[in-house]
């Protein structure tokens, strides 16, 4: 970065909140994307940002973007950097805007159960503040400890209890954002409204391409008074799926429904004594005592009518207590040369789900490879499927193998009526499939991006929106 540029940034942020040391630049040049992690085992050339800045106010963000727009400098917004979809990978010459110093809870409306917080707050920190007043956001994605509110919003995140609490987009009441030209915009804090399009949705899922989200107000719920657990084992995989569907149809709202196939069951309960095996459905109900018990008993009736055996509640409790464990699984695997591991998620309506799952299993099966999956986040309409593919190849082949896995998965998903991404957003390797899924919708998103960000400064490359590509 030129000294002149640095000076300009220092004018906005002060010297201590602008960094362009090689280490910092390197640290911010990566996220947790499997493809790039395995690639980096073998090559060191990667795009480095020019500098990292840490805004503390919306006005600083505004000034940054105005400056960047004028100079056509790419800006990559960075939350926790936990994306698995290369969402924060900078292009050369970019400025990384790390949001984590904007982390205040600015308003706690306990009466209306609405929390307003800055976008850089970590999931855990936000939840902590809520716990103090007896509320919960109910948003618990696996990377909860290290990901930020802004990241949740920008990727339309969902957590392990989203069956009850909804994905993040359902919790957003209003937000504040800075447009690429530096103007500060916001939406109204009202339970619902009919005053035109829902502009929250311009930014939700935008993966940093349309501006920077600086603040949001979210619906919370009362912290649950009670929690009940249950687990069931199904001999026939599809019976378990049916049981989930029937529960949702009945209007039950479990906090979690999670149905794992045998390999996934084995991993989930690996550290448990007397661990269950087979197709296991875990149910967690929470909320008011009577309601939770009532729902659990209705759920039990449904499960049993679908040919299962009841497991003790221990299994469900174990899953609940270790539900962030998923996030730790990758490191040991990926530390090893030649090893790879990827998480692929999709969602489909109930009528398509069983076939989609079967064809995904077929498509992804391979020598020396383990495919495991679970179905979760159910609604009356359908549910999500999360697949983990793990295996070994000769060192150097990992990237190619992962690419092949993705290609197979995406075409199977497209054919089976699933979505290219249930949560986590879109990585560069998903763009073609995304275009297919959205059709004209993709063109509209691209055109909207070009209109709102004519200089193309916001996270260039994301979604394949650049003019050049």
């Amino acid at each position, binding site marked *: 970065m030129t000294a002149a540029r640095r000076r300009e940034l220092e004018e906005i942020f002060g010297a201590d909140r602008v960094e362009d040391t090689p280490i910092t630049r390197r640290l911010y040049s990566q996220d947790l994307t499997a493809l790039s992690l395995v690639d980096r085992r073998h090559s060191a050339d990667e795009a480095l940002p020019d500098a990292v800045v840490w805004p503390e106010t919306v006005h600083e963000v505004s000034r940054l973007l105005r400056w960047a727009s004028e100079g056509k400098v790419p800006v990559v917004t960075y939350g926790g950097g936990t994306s698995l979809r290369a969402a924060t990978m900078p292009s050369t010459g970019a400025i990384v805007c790390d949001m984590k110093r904007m982390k205040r809870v600015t308003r706690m409306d306990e009466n209306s159960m609405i929390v307003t917080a800055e976008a850089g707050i970590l999931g855990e920190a936000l939840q902590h503040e809520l716990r103090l007043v007896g509320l919960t956001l109910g948003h618990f994605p696996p990377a909860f400890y290290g990901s930020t509110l802004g990241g949740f919003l920008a990727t339309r995140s969902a957590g392990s209890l989203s069956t009850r609490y909804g994905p993040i987009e359902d919790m957003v009441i209003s937000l504040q954002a800075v447009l690429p030209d530096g103007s500060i915009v916001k939406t109204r804090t*009202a*339970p*619902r409204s*009919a*005053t035109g399009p829902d502009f929250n949705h311009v930014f939700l*899922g935008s993966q940093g391409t349309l501006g920077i989200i600086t603040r949001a107000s979210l619906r919370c719920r009362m912290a649950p008074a009670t929690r009940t657990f249950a687990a069931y084992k199904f001999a026939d995989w599809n019976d378990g799926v049916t049981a989930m569907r029937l529960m949702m149809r009945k209007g039950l709202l479990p906090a979690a429904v999670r149905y794992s196939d045998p390999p996934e069951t084995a991993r989930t309960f690996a550290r448990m004594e007397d661990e269950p095996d087979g197709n296991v459905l875990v149910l967690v109900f929470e909320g008011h005592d009577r309601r939770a018990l009532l729902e659990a008993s209705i759920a039990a009736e449904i499960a049993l009518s679908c040919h299962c055996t009841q497991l003790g509640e221990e299994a469900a409790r174990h899953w609940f207590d270790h539900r962030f464990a998923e996030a730790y699984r990758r490191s040991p695997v990926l530390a090893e040369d030649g090893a790879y591991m990827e998480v692929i998620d999709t969602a489909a309506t109930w009528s398509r789900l069983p076939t989609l799952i079967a064809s995904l299993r077929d498509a992804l099966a391979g020598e020396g490879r383990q495919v495991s999956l679970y179905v979760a986040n159910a609604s009356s309409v359908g549910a999500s499927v999360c697949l983990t593919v793990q295996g070994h190849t000769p060192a150097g082949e990992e990237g190619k193998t992962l690419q092949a896995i993705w290609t197979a998965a995406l075409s199977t998903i497209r054919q089976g009526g699933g979505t290219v991404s249930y949560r*986590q957003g879109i990585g560069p390797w998903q763009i073609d499939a995304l275009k297919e899924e959205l059709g004209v919708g993709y063109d509209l998103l691209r055109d909207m991006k070009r209109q709102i960000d004519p200089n193309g400064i916001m996270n260039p490359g994301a979604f394949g929106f650049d003019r050049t590509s």
Partner: protein
Amino acid sequence: MALSLPAPAAREVVDQLAAIVGPEQVSVAPIDRLTYARDMYTVAIIKHAEGKLEHFPHVIVWPANEDELIRVVKLAPDLGLPVIPFGAGSGVCGGTLPIHGGIMLDVKRLGRIVEINDDDLTVTAQAGINGQVLEMELNRHGYTLGHFPSSIHCSTLGGWVAARSAGQLSSKYGKIEDMLIALRWVCPDGRVYSSPIVPGRSTGPDFDQILTGSEGTLGVCTEATLRICPYPADRRFVAFTFPDVPTATEAMRMMLRNDLRPAAMRLYDALDTMLVGTSGSTEHTQGKSLGDLLQIEQIGNRVRTLAPDLFRKAQRFVAGNAQIANQLELLAKEGCMLILMFEGERELTDYEFEAAVMICERLGGTNKGPKPAIRWFENRHHVSYKMSKVYYNGAFVDTIEVATTWTRLIDLYDAVCAALKPHAFLMAHFSHAYPDGCSIYFTFVTSAADADEAATKHAFIWSLAMKAAGGVGATLSHHHGIGLSKAQYMRDEHGDMMRVYRDIKTVMDDAHRFNPGKMGL
């Protein structure tokens, strides 16, 4: 003297459109231009009746299917005419008023149910389907959409989506945007946007939610997929009275906070309670309109024949004299009535019912038993018929539906009451409640000598209401939308976010061909 309508679309225009939809389905006849000249916007109703409306569509077309509709949309630029999507014209904000003339694009012949999917609990239907027809079809197959706007008899699915409609049971089932799974949409340039039918996705911004609420400014909805529910196995009813609005709203808040989801949860303020007469003991006022209450109708029918002019003047005086009308409040000894209905699976409704009763009783409510609630349920469509009576009696009526968080709710109520009571007869109910907040539905009645005076008075009252609501940070519309009548307040509502709206408009409809002059664009 018969009205002289401005020149309609030229012969060639009609011919070109007829080549697409057939000669029967395109019209420049005055009977059609007049019946498509307004929706249910108060001022337009009065002007229309007095023959004072100034704007009429150049031409009306009724495409039979999406293909024809696309061809009409694609032809529009060549014809140089604006395009206005038209559902059933039940909008109350002038959303379909052809203020620049143009092609009235009626979507109602796209009225089929495409699929009811039992596994997925979804219905896919074309946008022109009438709401009640859709609900009856679903009922017949054992489902409900759970969407019951008071206008369900007279509005379309496309209109609901276009204006972010809310039904009477929105506390349980959500608003239309909450039910939406996927959309088909013809863009202003004729391209077809179609979103995938999946239970959730993270594939960039959800354009469905950007198109929803666009009220004809971003193109035409042709199909929607919505989630449905099994028809409720059970219903439980109960009603409570509370001494005042704040106590009652507190009970509502507590129920929602504790995860209860009554299908219906309606609180009437003291005046509304008395007039709507939902309470068991006020049999005499049950189902009466303001006109009835002042007994002007009975006297009126006799006087009308003798001296029609005098009659209208007398009524207008009473209705127009807000101080007199609002004095009625002194008669309202009932307090506020809260109506509750639970529906769904038996065990769950039982639980919710008992829990709700406990909360209401603990917070000072008097249990009035199920009757008032049942009566509300059975007569829930009656309110929409009352419009006729009010106008017939020489007055006019409009509703203002604003919403805010629980914390600011009473401020909102007080502010709007204070602003409007000197100028109009005003009552309110709280009928769409959520864990985070609630909407207030104000009904005002007043009168004017003629359409021009009505327009001025109406605009004045609205400006006071919008200022009061905006002052406490409320959203200016919970479910009626913006259309023409509230367009000027869009800037207050959205500030610089209007830029984003304009950007989207530029991308989709740079020429402002679709529904020009609306939404403050």
